């Protein structure tokens, strides 16, 4: 069914169609609407689930940890400071190998107080053992949420999908919402490696050091192998819905000599800028990341082979560079890295056009809206 929804509404519908059984959340702008919508659905009986109105984000993830470990499909959502407040639980659920899904509506981190987007919050989860995706538009935010449950449950690791504050969370776009039957066909009943509560066994107790190391190695390997699980889920989803949602998207990249790498909502503007430059005869294309973890280094290396690469980060690893810049350097050896759009500073089609043009002409310099 084609309809019009904001990103927040679409994610709430994806959670419903995934037959989620337990939701716990604490409000934070700009995520709040997702859980308000879900609370409304639970109250009206539209969604048969438990809604736990926790007193903090730390408890939000703790509560869904409890329901997920006890065998129920569970969901929460947060942003920025909420994510940082629950950070201890972020690592705990991954190390405990518990499947669940959390939406991060990306928002910058204060001070100063600011509710607008950048991706630094999402990327603080990079090393924790989560599968991390990022949406470009409302449709992707919807699709990734449904796929998230399946991927998470197949590899017994938590899944997060990011979407940009306001640009997606509060912006209405046309979305195609599949029928319940289609989602059921794609998303089997929940499975997980262990269910807590029936038998007398202990989860998470102290162990010998080598045991911790063994478990971390297993998580590391599972997360790398999740690449193929994501690709398989994406293929099957495409068969059912016609929409591809793989590890990354290549836009006019095949014959490009220059390649831009980025992720999130502004990739749409970047595509328009690339179209303009193509018309001017510039051989440039885009690699839009949909997943940061697992990071498909080899596939990215192949896709970017022999090209001049510009990575545009909407995040910053202080004292080092853009997080994606660091990651892509690990993949292709060398690239130019721009940090832009921090704190929601708007970078649109025209600015991308001049940024990319300057990159191609080897004249890229820092300016008020971005830095190298």
């Amino acid at each position, binding site marked *: 069914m084609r309809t019009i929804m904001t990103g927040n509404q679409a994610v709430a519908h994806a959670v419903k169609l995934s037959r989620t*059984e*337990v939701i*716990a959340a604490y409000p934070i702008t700009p995520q709040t609407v997702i859980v308000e919508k879900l609370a409304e659905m639970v109250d009206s009986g539209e969604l048969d689930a*438990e809604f*736990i*109105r*926790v*007193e*903090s984000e*730390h*408890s*939000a993830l*703790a*509560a*869904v*940890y*409890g*329901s*997920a*470990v*006890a*065998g*129920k499909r*569970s969901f929460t959502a947060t942003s920025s400071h909420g994510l940082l407040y629950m950070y*201890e*639980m972020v690592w*705990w659920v991954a190390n405990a190998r518990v499947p669940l899904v959390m939406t991060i509506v990306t928002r910058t981190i204060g001070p100063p107080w600011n509710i607008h987007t950048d991706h630094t919050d999402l990327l603080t989860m990079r090393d924790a053992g989560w599968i991390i995706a990022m949406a470009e538009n409302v449709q992707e935010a919807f699709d990734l949420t449904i796929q998230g449950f399946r991927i998470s449950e197949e590899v017994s690791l938590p899944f997060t999908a990011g979407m940009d504050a306001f640009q997606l969370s509060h912006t209405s776009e046309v979305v195609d919402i599949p029928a319940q039957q289609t989602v059921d066909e794609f998303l089997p009943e929940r499975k997980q490696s262990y269910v*807590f*509560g*029936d*038998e*007398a*066994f*202990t*989860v*998470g*107790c*102290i*162990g*010998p050091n080598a*045991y911790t190391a063994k478990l971390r190695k297993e998580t590391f390997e599972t997360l790398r192998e999740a690449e193929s699980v994501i690709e398989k889920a994406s293929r099957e989803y495409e068969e059912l819905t016609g929409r591809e949602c793989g590890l990354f998207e290549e836009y006019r990249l095949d014959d490009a000599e220059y390649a831009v790498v980025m992720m999130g909502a502004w990739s749409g503007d970047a595509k328009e800028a690339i179209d303009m430059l193509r018309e001017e005869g510039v051989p440039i294309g885009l690699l839009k990341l949909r997943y940061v973890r697992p990071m498909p280094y080899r596939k990215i290396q192949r896709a970017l082979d022999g090209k001049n690469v510009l990575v545009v980060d909407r995040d910053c690893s202080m004292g080092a560079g853009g997080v994606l810049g660091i990651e892509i350097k690990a993949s292709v050896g060398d690239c130019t890295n721009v940090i832009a759009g921090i704190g929601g500073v708007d970078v649109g089609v025209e600015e991308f056009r001049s940024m990319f043009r300057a990159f191609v002409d080897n004249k890229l310099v820092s300016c008020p809206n971005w830095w190298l």
Partner: protein
Amino acid sequence: MEYSEPILLPGNPSCQGCPHGLGLKALGIGLDNPVIVIPAGCSTIIAGIHPKATINAPVLHVPFASAPAVASGIAAAFRREGKDRQVVVWMGDGGADIGFATISGAAVRNEDIIVIVSDNEAYMNTGIQSSGTTFWKAKTTTSPAGKKEERKDLAAIMLMHRIPYVATASVGYLPDFIDKLKRAKEVKGFRFIQLHSPCPPGWRFDSSKTVEMARMAVKCGAWILWEYDGEFRFSPASKPYKNKEKRKSLAEYMRAQGRFKGISDEEIAEIEKAIERQWKFLEAMEGL
């Protein structure tokens, strides 16, 4: 009293004279089929080191401040399945300090869980640091000259959450604790029990005297046993000590513990006044 399968198995790594061991044994007697959530603390160790486990029940270890929230999630999952099992949080006073908002939030939602704070009056697992319930003027490693502030009354604070069941208990009176667990089991919603748990190494007394110390605390009136299940009442073991004259010597109780070494008669008199105020406060609850 009937023993089914013991919940705490022998050979567990608790200290000699550990009060948590007594409490956990009673827990297994008072409740059927508990599912136990344990945040960081002494009980993290008592529960055993992989591949051994000492608690004969499902046990989930969780981060320090998270336990009542995790228990809320488990209770929600059980509700979905129609499973009738007691979801119990077993935590120390440290977990109750760092996780205070979490306990309060779960209580406000009237979650169908039982929270037991085994209160040994300091952060013992990290080496005897002062907590919100550390006894006034007790020496800890972070209050080496004696704690300057009075202890907070956690059970009374929980009572003010308008939850259906709140009680205090003591490892010196296990039948009373077991009775309270049995009554709590019959109540639906959030239930809270603060279990007084004298700690031999933390309070500096001989490990053979845990029960004796717990009883002295009740008999001198410093620890008051009460219960609320819709109405407030003093428990039988504490009832006689409503009468100030009947209370045993507070000085004797305090001087039996190394943590009060060097305390003056004047300081003890000051604490005695605070204890009397506490009795008056609780007496005002009676019949409300």
